[in-house]
């Protein structure tokens, strides 16, 4: 009953390989421009996650794991930690938790830097980690989710 999952579409593989760096760059771009233009940590995270998931569909979960060799569960936790840390400096200054601080002048090429950017980074990391990990979890259960759509004739569904 064990189905062999095949990840063998040449077109998809070529496109996926080309797209990976572009999408990952795009995701960082989205993260950084988020404060003034459409984008942000959430969108950036989703872009990065879809880049990795695209690899997973084209090459299989093994290959996809190799792109970022990291434990996604830990990454998600780190993301939340980073996001939570951003509120702490305010406490030192005796202001309410999560009060934002900004460097007065924008840094050329990067833009304005302040604590909300760190928060966005935390969101970014968490979204990447959670989305990718869920996809990997599903893909690594070929018995449960045999990815390739079973054909009607050989699907083995009982006739009721």
């Amino acid at each position: 009953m064990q189905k062999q999952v095949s990840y063998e579409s040449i077109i998809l593989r070529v496109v996926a390989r080309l797209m990976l760096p572009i999408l990952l760059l795009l995701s960082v771009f989205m993260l950084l421009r988020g404060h003034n233009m459409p984008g942000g940590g959430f969108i950036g995270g989703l872009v990065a996650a879809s880049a990795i998931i695209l690899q997973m569909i084209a090459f299989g979960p093994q290959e996809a794991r190799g792109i970022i060799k990291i434990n996604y569960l830990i990454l998600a936790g780190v993301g939340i930690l980073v996001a939570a840390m951003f509120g702490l400096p305010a406490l030192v200054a005796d202001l309410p938790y999560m009060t934002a601080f900004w460097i007065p002048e924008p840094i050329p090429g990067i833009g304005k830097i302040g604590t909300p950017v760190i928060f966005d980074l935390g969101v970014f990391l968490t979204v990447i980690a959670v989305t990718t990990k869920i996809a990997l979890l599903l893909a690594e259960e070929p018995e449960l989710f045999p990815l390739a759509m079973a054909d009607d004739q050989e699907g083995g569904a009982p006739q009721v």
Partner: protein
Amino acid sequence: MLLLIVLFAFATSPMGLLARREPRVLAGWGLAILPLIIFAALCAQIPVITDGGSIVEAIPWVPAMGLELRFSLDGLSLLFALIISGIGTLIVGYAGAYMEKDVGLGRFLVYMLLFMGAMLGLVLAGNVLTMFVFWELTSVTSYLLIGYKHDYPDARRGAQQSLLVTGFGGLALLVGLLLLGAAAQQVGVPVNQAYNLDAMLAAGDQIKQTALYGPALWLIFLGAFTKSAQFPFHFWLPGAMQAPTPASAFLHSATMVKAGVYLLARLAPGLGETPLWNYTLISVGGFTFVFGAIVAFRQNDIKALLAYTTLSQLGGLVLMIGLGGKYGSEALVTLILAHALYKSALFMTAGIIDHETGTRDLNRLGGLRHTMPVTMAIVTVALLSQMGIPILLGFVAKEWALKAALESTLPAPWPTLGLMAVLLAALGYIVAAWRLFKQSFLGAPTPELLTRHVHDPKPAMLLSPAIPALLSLLLPLGLLPAVSSLLSPAAAAVYGERFSFELYLYKEVNLALLLSLGAIALGTLLATQEQRLAAHRVIATVSGAELFDHFIDRMLALATWMTRTLQSGRMRTYILYSLLSFLLFVGLPFLAYGLDEMRIPYDAELQFHEIVVVSLIPVGIIATIMARSRLGAIIAVSSVGAMVSLLFVLFSAADLALTQLLIEVLSTVFLLFLFSVLPARFRSFSPAWVRWRDAGIAILFGMLMTGLVLATAPSTMFPPLAPYFLENSLAGGKGANVVNVILVDFRGLDTMGEITVLFIALLSIYGLLRFRTQRNALPLSGNEQQRPLPGATSNGSHAAPVPTAGSSREEA
């Protein structure tokens, strides 16, 4: 100071574990230093309080909601705190000797010290919300103590009963206190003071006028009556006697059960003196007073006998609060002190008898006067105080109780009823005390006892009951002025005005004295008939505990039935029930109130391309329904999402559009995974009527949601937030992208919560899938593999889609 006292009690509680280490000097009296320090610190405050002062400490937490950590010390809280720490000292020392050979002694002492901290916090709290937190803590620690011998089913049952009853009361109390706070705000108390006890009581007269007063009071009564074991919630207290005797002596006689009384006494000056207050408390308290006393002398277990006299005494205290007035409050505080002293002594000696003879059954005891003379002396003094025999503190307290009833200014039947209750209870106490004394110390020892080498315990154990028993005797003999000066501010706190009173043993021959002596005479007469009385059929015990157990059983059966019906493990039933309950609980009110609110905004300037995009949405939906293959359905449903994100683009919500689009892409991928387990083509397994029913429910639900949007979108109930965000985004948030500034700055805490939810969803999916893999390793899976039912392979495959689809879509 007060905060420090409470913190000290909690912080040092782990030191109880030291009792298990060698050298064992720390067990018992060594550790008793901890409560003793608190007792000393409180004693140092006595002059301040007796001079009419009070101490208040407050740490604001959420002032906008009236939440604060406020402690205040006045006469009443000082009296309670002294009793708690004083008896706590004796009990910790006693426990060390009583449970010397128990390996769990350390754990037990930790619980005891924790409980003491909670109880101190409760009586020192100056804010009702602070008080509530400690109130619940006492319930929890009491649960741990009653269930200490968790190997015994009876102990577990007693612990569960007490937790359920007091926990239920606690919930009622919380609602009652919140209502009271709301009432205080209605009459003009500022929010940050609304839960402050002093402010609340000061506004008491106006609060009584509000409509919230009645409901709030009933709920608070529920909380107080359950905690203080008033009829009909009394049954958990005898059950709680499963706790080791030191805990019973501490919690279930001297301290915790008085929390309800304390709460009522605390609220009395502001909220009392209304018919509802007086008559309820007199009826419930008076009945419990008599009921407990009568049931008590039928008991054969010493601890059960003491438990019933305790709950009777608690009824007496509630009765005193109900009678009110100066004498009522004087009698209340005197009774509290007298009862705490003699009852803790009695419980501890009951523990000693149990410890030495191995039984608490009155029918198997006897003749202990030869073997345990010191214990007998202590018991005698304590029992005399309980019976209210002259020159003991109990006598003074009883006389004041009679005076409270005689001098009451309440309308006709109530003072008389109160008087009857005091006299009847006094008779019951005498019979119960005589029976306890006669059965254990007089007569001949049973053969069983002769084989044991029964003797008085060592002084370390005798010291604890001896001190309160001696105080019961010595206080009235020489120290009444001192006691009066301590009790006066306590009575004043209950009465609400400063006044002082003098306790005395004998001043003149008056009605109260005559009644008191008459009761003693009649009681003595009855006591000679105690065997016949105890066997009397008419005085049957109402076994609330059994009723309660029956009730809990039915409750569990109902819960099992509900779980079986609702938690079928099938996605479609879950969705069906969710939609149906939404239709019922939202749809019906909407039909009643919301229809008029619906506005259909008509915009003549709809563009052609907008109409096209919108009309493609139903096309996608119909295509999803009609699709023959799952792949087709997935693509069709994602086209709907694509159209929605196109709409966002048209209304220049770029961020929303981007997010929606990405989520659509990812959900399509996830759906492909999840559906790949099912056959590619749809097959219908349901009969036609089920499909029509589901279609009907789906259409109704869609209509309801549309109606809700139409009704709420144009609502002007609240000023819109958008202008604020638009104005402050660049200036305050340093960002031109308002959506993002809202996400990371204005509503940063929300986003924080959302990513935490994402993480939790991930963990659940992880757990579900890994758990499933392990379960499949069981031989059972061989069966499954032969007949793979689509969509029914295991729970894992069902449950997994729920959080996935939910979490990824929710964020859009």
